[in-house]
């Protein structure tokens, strides 16, 4: 097992961008875990300058490396705390999406027939839904908040995973080891979860990493349009408040860091997924 992991790591390591992605991701994960200790200020606290005046929209300085907002809040602290929402939404939605998508793909592909038909028609319907507008409408109707954001993301993004996994299962079904398992009298469930899952898992992981990026991006977009959880600081909501305060042209320090943070984290997801894809799809390695 250890040897297998080591082998995977060797393959993974060959992808330079993949390693970069993993590093970035780990960094953000650490920041999110230790956010309360890393943030120099309470992200929602209105701060004052040493001379007692209100620290309204101060440019970067040693006290505030990313400056302050219109309400005198420390942007660095907001960006640090905001990483939690990004990772919380990203990881939660990515895992739920993968879970649902993989299972639908497995069931549809393995059973075939009307079950396959039904599930794939459902997938088609979901494919017809424009993602972001749907998320906006859903969150606007159900009310802003992380749970609803995650629901909106999950409801749509399982579709890709389901399709990809299904076609993978269709190929695997022809292979001899599945036939063999069937001949020994293994139950359907056993075949799916003992024999198929280990083989589709790497591919699922590719999509987990991709979905992670999408989820973070979607959460940011929803928050930016003002439908984020108003009680939480997220990167999208920082950008939103800068936009609402009409500070985009004047306070670059308020707009730049959160946007860059989103970009880096989403990018790390893409990089990781590409590297994992090489593991999942050995054909890619031969090139």
């Amino acid at each position, binding site marked *: 097992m250890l040897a297998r992991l080591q082998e995977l790591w060797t393959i993974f390591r060959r992808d330079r961008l993949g390693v970069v992605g993993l590093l970035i991701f780990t960094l953000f994960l650490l920041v999110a875990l*230790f*956010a309360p200790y890393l943030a120099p200020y309470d*992200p929602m606290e209105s701060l004052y300058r040493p001379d007692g005046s209100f620290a309204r929209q101060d440019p970067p300085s040693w006290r505030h490396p990313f400056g302050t907002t219109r*309400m005198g809040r420390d942007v660095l602290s907001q960006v640090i705390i905001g990483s*939690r929402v990004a990772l919380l939404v990203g990881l*939660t939605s990515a895992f739920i999406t993968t879970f649902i998508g993989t299972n639908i793909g497995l069931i549809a592909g393995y059973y075939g027939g009307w079950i396959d038909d039904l599930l794939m028609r459902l997938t088609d319907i979901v494919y017809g839904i424009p993602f972001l507008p749907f998320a906006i409408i859903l969150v606007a109707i159900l009310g*802003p908040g992380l749970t609803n954001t995650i629901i909106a993301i999950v409801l749509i993004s399982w579709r890709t995973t389901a399709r990809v996994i299904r076609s993978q299962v269709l190929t695997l079904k022809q292979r001899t080891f599945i036939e063999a398992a069937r001949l020994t009298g293994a139950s359907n469930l056993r075949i799916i979860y003992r024999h198929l899952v280990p083989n589709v898992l790497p591919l699922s992981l590719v999509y987990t990493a991709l979905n992670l990026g999408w989820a973070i991006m979607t959460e940011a977009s929803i928050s930016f349009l003002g439908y984020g959880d*108003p009680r939480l600081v997220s990167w999208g909501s920082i950008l939103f*408040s800068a936009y609402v305060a009409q500070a985009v042209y004047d306070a670059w320090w308020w707009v730049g860091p959160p946007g860059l943070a989103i970009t880096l984290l989403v990018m790390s997801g893409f990089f990781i997924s590409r590297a994992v894809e090489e593991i999942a799809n050995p054909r890619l390695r031969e090139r």
Partner: protein
Amino acid sequence: MLVHTAAAESKGEHSFSRVSRRQRRSQAQRLFFFLTLFITASLLLTSCSTGGSKPASQLTPERKVREIELYVTTADYDPVRYEFGMMVADQWRKLGLDVKVTPLAWPRLSQLGIKEKNYDAFTLNWAGLADRIDPDHFVFLTLHSSQAGVGQYNIAGYNNPEYDKIAEESRRATDPEKRRELVFKAQEIFARDLPYAPIAHRNQLMAYNKRDFDNVTTMMGEGLNAFWNFLSITPKGNKKVAVWGYPSDVTNLNVLTSTNAHDHQTARLIYDKLVQIDPEGKAIPWAAESIQQPDPKTVVVKLRKGMTFQDGKPVTSEDVRYTYQLINEVKSPYFMGRITQLGKVEAPDPQTVVFTLKEPSASFVANTLAQVYILPKHVWSKILADKGAKGVLEYQNEKPIGSGPFKLEYWRRDQEMKLTRFDKYYQPAKVEGILKIPYANVQGMTTALEAGECDIGGWSLEPGQAKKLSGLSHLAVLDIPDHGFYHINYNMRRLPFDDLAVRKALTLAIPKKAIIDQLLEGHGVIAYSFIAPINKFWHNPKVEKTDYDLEKARQVLKTAGYEWDASGKLYYPVGKSDQKK
């Protein structure tokens, strides 16, 4: 400095952990909560610290004051209301209350707050509309006990017979001096009883192009969008057409249908009115030459002579009479609420209109005659005949004919609207025309002002932007007081808000000055009454002033028998409990 100390006190408990715990509670009621919880737990494990609170011996658990929920708007709908809600909640917590702040989208908030009255407390802004200069809206509609039903404006559920009597009298008092006394008295009772807590009158910050234009006129609530501004604004040089910027376009020029305030700000330049509210807030005869009241239930209006519509037809009393008939016939959503006191309208001769009221009304001139336009009968009777009542309401009226100071030359939706001066108007405008441009959002309008493309900014600027624009040589930025105000409604139908001591204490804990300094950046005045100081005639400067004083707030509660446990949580006086119905 106030909020600084406040924040410093709460520094011990890290704010994120507070937020996340609350967040988790609300999620627990929803779908998928366990999954979220799983991740939340793994991410936020470090931030859990719950201080268990044990009530002191004689403080029985049923006496503990329940958690109260404060609704605020979302930050994009109004950042000020959102932010001051948070500030106020922080202060209320210091009184030993558990306060949950819930931001809601405006439709939901107005549904729960104004319509169903299903709330504990929520932040609201009474906008400074023209028909709120007359005190009737605040004195009667927001506070009389008969107005506390579904969808009505007595949101707090205030019910005080003493107050009701004065409010009723003020409605009937047609003598302004007598009415003023009553309105003053009403403000005193209000400031004592605090059914809702007035917080601040927010100034409007509006900019105009002072290089090319002068003689602007502003007005409370309207700022530069005042009717008078478009008559008085005068070109200095060759630029004879003023560009009037606004963040959005007019939605509909059918005045019978539209309920949008900006539609009416535009429509009143095209359609004239019998009465206008002057910049000081007084109703003055306008298209009417004179207004007489031979008895409290009869209003006789003489029209100016020689007025014509923009298609050349004369304006007669029959047009005025017909307008009221039309409103009734199609049930105009905008005007029906404004003619409730009206009995009948007659036009005995072409220059005279006689209004008969159901009961004496002090606000009839200001809130009916100054709101309803004069529509040409020859145009609208044809539309009614062709399309029926429903058709009139759906009619788009893209080529309106009125008798006002400007006529519509063309209108391309979302791009521009051109109004040209109507030269036969009895008080012609100084500019040759107005080019009305929707800039899609406030930022767009601001940049257009900055670039000199826009001459009159029709929307209040963000304080930061205002400061920037006032530094430019071609612009003047005006700080215009408003008679609308931010306030917090208490639901007096519920515990603990039924108790004056609680409302008083909560109001004492509202940091009004800090709200104005930090959120409005100083552009506003503290509100103690429902009539703003700028509304000089009706404002009572001698009402009880409830300013921020946390110590006094605690004192008020203590005197009323409230107690605190060891952890500082608030308990009802003996015998009172949330659990008892």
